[in-house]
């Protein structure tokens, strides 16, 4: 923790809202001050590439809007009234109460109030996510754990060839939908069923998620606790792999196949087919490569998942030289070595400077001290890129100079997108 300039995340409540916005027919009931829901939506959804996401988000998100009287006398009655009226007015499958700082600090017994509504023919659940509990990632992890705890049912039968995807945070990863779609496409191609994907999950799929044979965690450390808890509770093992991009996808698919008992030959056939298409497009790139990409020394400013996978792709597939990698999502102390090791797992002994830093000003200092000649970062890094006369491709939050709809950067198709967008960034800066 500690002060941070130009923050690259919202708060725990923002993370909880991000999770709810990624679900199908789920409505948040925000028990917090009157501004939280709006501030977080304006910040998060618009800051993630101007996306309108969520069944009832932004100005449509139910919120108890606690004022001074509730801070002084308690907000439980107001919350009860709000849950009641939300169920009456909003047609949803899941009513998800999430709390902000006021409820967290005055000590409303939110769980007790929510319990009054459960046990009926609808899901009314709660996650305590006051902003001071941490970043968007932390809140997303907390809310995910609450969701699985309160909605998932013990499995009647186990399906070894069914998996759950966890850890991609809607809008905080502006390309979350495109990224998940490609991972899902590839997993289905090797013969797996994806129960929970992180995009459009329904109450029905969340209920039967314990039937999966494997959880796949695609992010940094903020979701480890939720996924481990899910393993303990429902006996679903997990494997962790940063978002695969380019030929790293083969390693990812082999690892998943291994863990789910998919036939090795079938997987190799898929990999060969996908790689053939991938290299067809890389061949197409090769003319421009010689012109604009060759010998580039790149910098990455992104969260740990993107930092690992983008660095790997640009180094191992595109043959660029990693100069500096700034990890912005403040992994816990015991996580940092893992992230550092994953970033530095590169061919040809290449070893960029790795910095863990959320503060915009100090990120600028790090980039000045290790000047790259192409930067992959967020819109907040455009000033520094301009001052260093370095072209920049913006991919990470906050993303306000691009739209993010269906585009994605994972897998084989996403890798082609990334190479294409990177080249375009260089060309358009010329």
């Amino acid at each position, binding site marked *: 923790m500690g002060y941070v300039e130009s923050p690259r995340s919202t708060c*725990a409540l923002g993370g909880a809202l991000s999770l709810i916005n990624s679900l199908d027919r789920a409505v948040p009931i925000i028990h917090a001050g009157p501004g939280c829901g709006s501030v977080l939506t304006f910040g998060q959804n618009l*800051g993630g590439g101007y996306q309108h996401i969520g069944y009832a988000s932004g100005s449509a998100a139910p919120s108890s809007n606690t*004022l001074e009287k509730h801070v002084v006398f308690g907000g439980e009655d107001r919350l009860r009234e*709000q849950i009641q*009226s939300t169920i009456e007015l*909003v047609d949803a499958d899941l009513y998800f109460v999430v709390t902000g700082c006021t409820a967290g*600090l005055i000590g409303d017994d939110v769980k007790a109030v929510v319990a009054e509504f459960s046990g009926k023919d609808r899901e009314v659940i709660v996650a305590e996510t006051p902003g001071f509990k941490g970043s968007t990632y932390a809140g997303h992890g907390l809310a995910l754990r609450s969701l699985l705890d309160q909605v998932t049912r013990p499995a009647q039968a186990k399906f070894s060839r069914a998996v759950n995807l966890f850890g991609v945070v809607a809008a905080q990863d502006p390309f979350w939908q495109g990224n998940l779609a490609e991972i899902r496409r590839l997993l289905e191609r090797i013969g797996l069923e994806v129960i929970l994907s992180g995009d459009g999950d329904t109450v029905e799929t969340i209920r039967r998620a314990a039937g999966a044979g494997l959880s796949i965690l695609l992010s940094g450390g903020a979701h480890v606790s939720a996924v481990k808890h899910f393993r303990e509770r429902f006996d679903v093992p997990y494997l962790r792999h940063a978002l695969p991009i380019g030929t790293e996808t083969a390693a990812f698919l082999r690892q998943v196949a291994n863990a789910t008992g998919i036939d090795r030959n079938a997987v190799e056939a898929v990999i060969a087919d996908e790689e053939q298409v991938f290299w067809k497009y890389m061949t197409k790139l090769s003319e421009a490569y010689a012109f604009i990409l060759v010998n580039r020394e790149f910098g990455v400013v992104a969260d740990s998942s993107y930092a690992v996978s983008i660095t790997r792709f640009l180094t191992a597939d595109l043959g660029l030289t990693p100069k500096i990698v700034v990890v912005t999502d403040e992994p816990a102390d015991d996580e940092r070595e893992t992230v550092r090791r994953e970033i530095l797992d590169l061919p040809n002994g290449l070893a960029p400077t790795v910095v863990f830093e959320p503060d915009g000003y100090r990120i600028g200092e790090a980039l000045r001290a290790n000047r790259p000649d192409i930067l992959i970062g967020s819109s907040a890094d455009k000033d520094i890129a*301009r001052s260093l006369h370095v072209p920049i491709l913006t991919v990470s939050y906050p993303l306000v100079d691009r739209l993010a709809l269906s585009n994605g950067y994972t897998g084989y198709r996403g890798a082609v997108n990334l190479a294409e967008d990177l080249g375009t960034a260089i060309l358009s800066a010329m």
Partner: protein
Amino acid sequence: MSATNRGVPTREERLHTITAFVGSGQELEHNARAGCVKQQDRRFSQAAACAEMMPLCNSALIDGNVVIAHSPVGCSGMLTLINLFNKTGRLMRGLPPANVRGISTNLGERDVVYGGADELERAILEADRRYNPPAITVITSCASGIIGDDVDALVTRVQPNVKASLIPIQCEGFKSGVVATGYDAFLSSLLRVIDKPKRGKKRKDTVLLINPLSISRPNEVEIERLLAKVGLKAQWFPLFTDFANVRNAAEVGGASTLCSLMSNYFFQEFERSFCVPFAEPSMPVGVEFTDLWLRKVGDMMGVSDRVEEVIAAERAAIEPQLAEIREKVRGKRAYVGFNLEKSLSLQSLLTELEMVTVVSTGFEYSDAYGKAAIENLNSRCGGKYTLHIGNFQHFEWANLFHREKPDLLVGGLELGGWALRQGIPVAPVLPHTFFLGYGGALSCGKDIVNSLRNASFSANLGRHVKLPYRQGWYESSPLAYIGGKQ
């Protein structure tokens, strides 16, 4: 929350501002006359606005200022979006591009137990070191308020150690459900850095004009043009202006505003401290309200005699083009969706274009700035339109969109996307739109004509979006949830 530390009175306390009303313009006028406009709570409410939003967003746009949000990290989330206002605002004024400078003290679990004052002190010292800024504003939050961090005392203690002027703003989010309370907190916080004018330094021909973040440079240029015609100069305050122009704000001959909704408390305190007279006309949109604005400002500045000839000349100059626009939009039914001040002023323009306003919205209402404009409009267009007062509250907008099926929304960021998703085309009035004064009336009128050309996107989109409300809600009264117990 110590008693000395409470900052400005809330709008609810000071002006009996309300945030819940659905009825006709006539009804609100009648209630206001009878003195029975009363706040009611909602049994169901949606994400609204808090007292912290405006201090954060506005102080980020004072040139060179660093804003520190003494809060968990999410409260400063809107800075991402404000950076866009900042970029376009700077570009239009020929200022070099630069990101807003915002720091969050990032209060965590440990801080809410042990207090966050030390972290705030570190952030202030570091902001001063990094940027050597003329000013640093420090914004409080729900969390800092509830845990009882005494920001005023800290600022007093730290001030001798930094070069920047420290400006604390007490604006805990839970203090008020009225967004304008935040404007009061923001603007009045600047009083402490305004200097007493030196003898002979008064600029009697200059009007201090408050510029809201949603009104962009082309509008300022139009106002400057009109003021120049009556021999006056404008000094914009406080956004996109050098901090020196904040300090010398009291040198002017008088003060006025482009949005009377936001300036009210500041002007009273400004006059008390510096004896600067003020005028608070409605936003100068359309012919009638621009006339009124010029008359009020002209009266205050002692140039009334020149105002009438300027009005006559401006009216004559735009009438032919206004008539052309009128031919194209006459009878079109509009839903006007902004804060009340902007909505009523745009409604005035629409009335001049012979359009029909079916709904006019406001995030809040108080007699102090709403009554005169509503009386004016009711006398001109009959008062049958629906007035919706709600601090956002999308479910009521959705009900009214469905009920009224307007031909278009004249609206901004808050309602624009929602109208499209309900199949209604949008005439946008955005932060970069030109809509003030006589020139703005033409420009805005042309925008409305253009927005009616091709409604394909909204029409198609509306068929594919399912809003989250039960079908029964659309058949209910939009008032149904106003009047909760809590």
